């Protein structure tokens, strides 16, 4: 009871933030009623998925300050668990999703335990290395379809299938992921003021001091890593049902890991709204750039050049993200 009350308690945000957040939430709820193109719908679903990825990354990367560039491996684990179980044994999404989460969390303990002895760059590159190892294994493992990947054929099931999450219209997917999105916000809101959240922020500020205060630094990091993993793996499972065609190349690539971290950084790592703002800017920008420029003959890759330029400009000139700017402006106003 106390937990739920804490999760719903947003009283430490300024009223203007809450008003804007409420309006955005209202817009998200009624968005499908307005006339929209299929492309806009797909972009919105992507936005919600990536917000959730970003929230997951934010717990360890933002609040904890541990730069994790290996989130894609957990997307892969979640997606593959759901897809394999659905194709081979006809297990519905709502059962395979928690199982995938368990696998991902177990894997995160296995690699997280040694990894968190490392700091800084070493940690970041080691997370990339584990992702690449896992991706290489999945690319030769016949049980999960090797490099061809897996395909969930929607013909076998009668849509709308709420148990297996197979739908014809995207709007169902939209509401499912929107539900997860709101739950995710509530969870992060609870998390940031939980015992672990406070421990984590003190670790970010100064690890030695945190240790001397009696915080088990290593264990706190591993636990948070598992939480971040659970988020990412959940969306991975959803990704499998939504995209229906998963390959190691697009569920476990380094690009995906980086995109997740980048969104959280662009919005402002270590803040509640940061990853959502980041996803809200970057995802439409990326998919519309691809739509307009990606297919131009003779200009292959121009959308990614612009995208890379955006990354470079942000990281060089505004590394604290949009939320950082907002806070700077507010602090200036107060003084």
């Amino acid at each position, binding site marked *: 009871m106390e937990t739920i009350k804490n999760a719903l308690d947003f009283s430490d945000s300024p009223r203007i933030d809450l008003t804007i957040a409420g309006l955005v939430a209202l817009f998200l709820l009624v968005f499908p009623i307005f006339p929209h193109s299929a492309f806009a719908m797909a972009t919105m679903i992507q936005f919600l998925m990536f917000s959730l990825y970003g929230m997951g990354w934010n717990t360890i990367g933002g609040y904890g300050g541990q730069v994790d560039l290996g989130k894609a491996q957990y997307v892969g684990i979640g997606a593959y668990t759901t897809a394999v179980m659905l194709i081979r044994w006809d297990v519905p999404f709502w059962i395979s999703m928690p199982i995938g989460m368990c696998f991902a969390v177990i894997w995160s303990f296995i690699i997280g335990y040694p990894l968190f002895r490392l700091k800084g*760059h070493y940690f970041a590159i080691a997370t990339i290395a584990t992702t690449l190892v896992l991706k290489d294994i999945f690319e030769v493992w016949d049980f999960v379809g090797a490099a061809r990947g897996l395909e969930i054929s929607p013909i076998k099931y009668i849509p709308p299938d709420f148990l297996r999450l197979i739908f014809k219209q995207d709007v169902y997917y939209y509401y499912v992921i929107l539900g997860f999105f709101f739950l995710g916000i509530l969870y992060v809101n609870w998390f940031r003021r939980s015992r672990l959240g406070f421990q984590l922020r003190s670790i970010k500020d100064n690890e030695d001091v945190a240790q001397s205060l009696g915080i088990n630094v290593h264990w706190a990091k591993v636990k948070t890593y598992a939480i971040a993993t659970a988020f990412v793996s959940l969306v991975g499972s959803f990704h499998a049902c939504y995209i229906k065609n998963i390959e190691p190349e697009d569920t476990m690539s380094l690009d995906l890991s980086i995109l997740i971290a980048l969104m959280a950084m662009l919005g402002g790592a270590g803040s509640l709204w940061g990853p959502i703002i980041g996803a809200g800017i970057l995802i439409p920008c990326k998919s519309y750039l691809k739509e307009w420029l990606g297919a131009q003959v003779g200009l292959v890759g121009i959308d990614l050049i612009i995208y890379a330029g955006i990354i470079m400009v942000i990281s060089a000139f505004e590394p604290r993200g949009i939320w950082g700017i907002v806070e700077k402006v507010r602090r200036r106003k107060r003084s």
Partner: protein
Amino acid sequence: MDILISSLFAGLLIGMVLALVALGLNIIFGVMEIVNFAHGEFLMVGMYTGLFTAQATGMEPLLTLPVAAVVGFLLGIICYYGFIKFLIRGPMVAQLLGTFGLMLFLRNIALLIFGSEDRALHHGILVDKSFDMGMGVIVPATKLTAAGLSVVAFVAVWLLMNRTKIGKALTATALNAQGARYMGIPTERMNALAWGIGGGSVTIAGALIVNFWSVNPFMGLLFTMIAFAIVALGGFGSVPGAFFAGLVVGLITEIPGIWDFFTYTFNFDWMNNVPMTSLKYMWVYLAYFVIVVVRPRGLFGWKQ
């Protein structure tokens, strides 16, 4: 037996070239503690430079090395003054993502200009020649020359770092940037120089590799990760460490060949069924992971 020896030999040869690839990354990390994700893309630039200079002028491919070195040096300097200088003021996550952005940028520019197809060199005095080293080991002349010239370039950079005033200034900047500034060393220029030397050495490696390896815009990441593994094993900031680690990682990339040897020798059926060739580079990543976990300092490292 000859499979084993020739795998080991091939591993050592490619290891020498890989050591040169990793050297640039090592210098940059040693001097200014920034991890350059675009390193593999620098290599790609070197490969394209070597390829097009040789094809356009009909020149002997080995003579393109100075061109590649100059291009790499300029690329490093431009990247430093145009981008990295601003990046290093930010937190670590921004640095990592920023160099990743640089990597995407270079990769897609290459894609835009050159297209996605594989390109390879087919002329020059070295093509289609090979040496018989005895004991059934036959080595292509291109690989042998590349390995030899890599060692030469490596030693040159090592001499530059250890025997000249500029090298000493670079080392001083690496050890203590603030202290170096008080001693009158222009650390800003030293950082740029580190990027220049890093870029130059890796493009030389690229111009050597293009003699026996085809190039496409997407090949950078593989070499970036290999270079990371080498630098981690040899120790961040250690030049001799990079060389030995390069040899070790070269041998690791030849694990499929060694596996073949054991398969033939012992004739186990299950060994045949393991798709070892597809897992070729997994061992490098795994080695990286094990190294940083077991010994983060590396073999010869002085930076923790």
